């Protein structure tokens, strides 16, 4: 196991899918181009060859179809892992996810359930065409009955995806495509899931808490490095599971640092960062020595790729916000 080769985040996804398909024959994968082609991002590469066309199904080109079939499969004893080809194509799935996947257990008092995963390549920064770069997690974060997960490293992608597939309720699993191939790490294929209800403290610090998820984890860690050079000690938290939110970990950090900068890629207004700031305003107000700040995408659509990097949070923007926070004593 120690000899396992280092793999990228997307390879970790594939590894988790393969592991769980071996372990549980009710697990199947469906979506557009997931079969022979292995998915446009190669997340399902090789799976059809290994597990057959009965376990890895190409669907007709319709997201409503994918979502509805997935709900049907999940409620009849299968564990479907559906793929939305890109974040921008998730909207036609929203009806089945919100009205049915999130409600079957509730509606039927546990008679029918919906153990499914919807994998969504998520976010910007890959110079892709329109609708291929959306950070739209907030479509799901206000919806009871769902879990919303967003890993930020190969190891967390592996462990969280295993947990998502094993979870008896529907999980929206958004994958930061900008870091699909950003770096490699050794991820033992040991079938060990990670918990779906905790934030990960990636770096300890005392002066300020940086709270983020997805692709921005990297920028936050770099910002923490930069801040350290200026003698500022930043704690970095990867939220990882947005819903249900492990606010306790964030609160504990802020009780220590007194300052919090929330970083996310989605537009600011009513993005999920608002929830974290709101919880701080409710539960940590007397711990805060500086106003909370959000470093986010602007309140406009992510532009086509020539301008997209100017839209996204950057190390500079994070450092600047952190310094504003630290200026408060």
């Amino acid at each position, binding site marked *: 196991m120690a000899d396992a080769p280092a793999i990228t985040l997307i390879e970790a996804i594939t590894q988790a899918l393969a592991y769980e398909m071996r372990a549980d024959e009710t697990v*199947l994968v469906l979506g557009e181009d997931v079969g022979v082609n292995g998915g446009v991002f190669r997340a399902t590469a090789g799976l059809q060859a290994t597990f057959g066309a*009965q376990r890895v199904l190409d*669907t*007709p080109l*319709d997201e*409503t*179809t994918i*979502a*509805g*079939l*997935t*709900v*049907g*499969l*999940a*409620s*009849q*004893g*299968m564990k479907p892992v559906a793929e939305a080809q890109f974040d921008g194509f998730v909207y036609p799935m929203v*009806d*089945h996810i919100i*009205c*049915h996947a999130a409600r079957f*257990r*509730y*509606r*039927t*008092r*546990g*008679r*029918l*359930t919906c153990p499914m995963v919807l994998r969504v390549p998520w976010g910007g920064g890959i110079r892709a065409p329109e609708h291929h770069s959306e950070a739209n997690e907030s479509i799901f974060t206000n919806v*009871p*009955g769902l879990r919303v997960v967003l890993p930020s490293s190969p190891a967390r992608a592996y462990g969280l995806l295993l947990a998502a597939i094993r*979870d*008896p*309720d529907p999980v929206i699993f958004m994958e930061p495509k900008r870091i699909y191939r950003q770096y490699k790490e050794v991820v033992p294929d040991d079938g060990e899931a990670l918990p779906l*209800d905790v934030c990960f403290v990636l770096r300890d610090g005392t002066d300020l808490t940086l709270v983020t998820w997805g692709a921005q984890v990297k920028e936050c860690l770099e910002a923490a490095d930069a801040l350290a050079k200026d003698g500022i000690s930043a704690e970095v938290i990867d939220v990882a599971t947005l819903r*249900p*939110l492990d*606010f*306790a970990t964030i609160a504990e950090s802020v009780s220590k640092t007194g300052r919090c900068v929330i970083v996310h890629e989605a537009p600011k207004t009513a993005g999920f960062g608002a929830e974290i700031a709101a919880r701080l305003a409710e539960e940590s107000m007397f711990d805060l020595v500086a106003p909370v700040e959000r470093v986010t995408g602007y309140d406009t659509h992510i532009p086509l790729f020539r301008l997209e990097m100017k839209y996204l949070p950057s190390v500079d923007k994070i450092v600047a916000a952190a310094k504003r926070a630290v200026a408060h004593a």
Partner: protein
Amino acid sequence: MTLAAQFQIEYLQYLGPDGKAVTELPQAFRDAAALVPLFKQMLYVRTFDAKAIALQRTGKLGTYASCLGHEATHVGIGASMTPEDVFAPSYREYGAQFMRGVKPREVLMYWGGDERGNDFSGPKHDYPWCVPIATQCLHAAGAALAFKLRGEKRVAVTCCGDGGSSKTDTYAAINSAGAYKLPFIQCIINNGWAISVPRNSQTGAQTLAQKGIAGGLHCLQVDGNDLIAVLEGMRRAVARAHNGEGGSVIEFMTYRLHDHTTADDARRYRDEAEVKDAWTRDPIPRLRTYLTAAGAWNEAQENAWIEESAKLVDVEINAYLELKVQPVTAMFDFLYADPPPDLLAQRAAAIALEGKAHG
């Protein structure tokens, strides 16, 4: 002229509105006596329906969707399925559901604002009532896909209305059933109206059965007020499914004799003359006439059964009326298998508030 394709859609009717056979009866349904239990079911459903409407009118039920006039279609569909099959209804197919074991009290619980109605006594794998129009069709297609993948000899049957046939989900279900050749039956119950919108405003298609052509499914149009035609149409579709020939779309021609729901007033948009005319095609007298002529049914039997079914329904109504409201915790306890701590905290707060309200 070179043809790329051509299609024919058959229309099935065996009993005319006067209860007389219009053509040779299908092999499988020539035994009138065998139809008696189904006729009794139709009468039972009609009794239930009238009582449910009365309950709503007296404030003891929420909005209720009547099935008046649909009895042959619903009962015929129910009779064509086995318990292992999966049924994905819309919201008024009680006739089919009763035959699958769902209890009238459960229908009332649902329309009475209590989720426990969905945890019904019918097959545990059947779908509950579905409010977002036609979304259930795709769940049935998904179920059919599960059956096919697991090699099970089961059929998924779903219903939508004439209005529901416009819904994109119906098309998605039909198309995927065709793409995967699924054991799937899409029943389109054309009762002439989608609330206030008449059938002809829904689509330019000459029949609703032809929706199936778009997905390469077998298409059939059936007189939905003729129980025998319903049974024969379903029999063919089930046989196809079992033989691996794939899915079917059946349009059942019937009529919504009541308002859309008890919250609706059809007089605002619908001609009384049309309704009057539709009553001449009522499925119940039609089958009664046929069974009576065949010597399989008589007035005494009918009177006895009407009385008995009224009593049976009253037992159900009483069970419903005695039902206690769920505790406030019910809105938290079935959300997740493994409820997160914040939700449990909200649950505790809700309990505390209850305590205050009551104490």
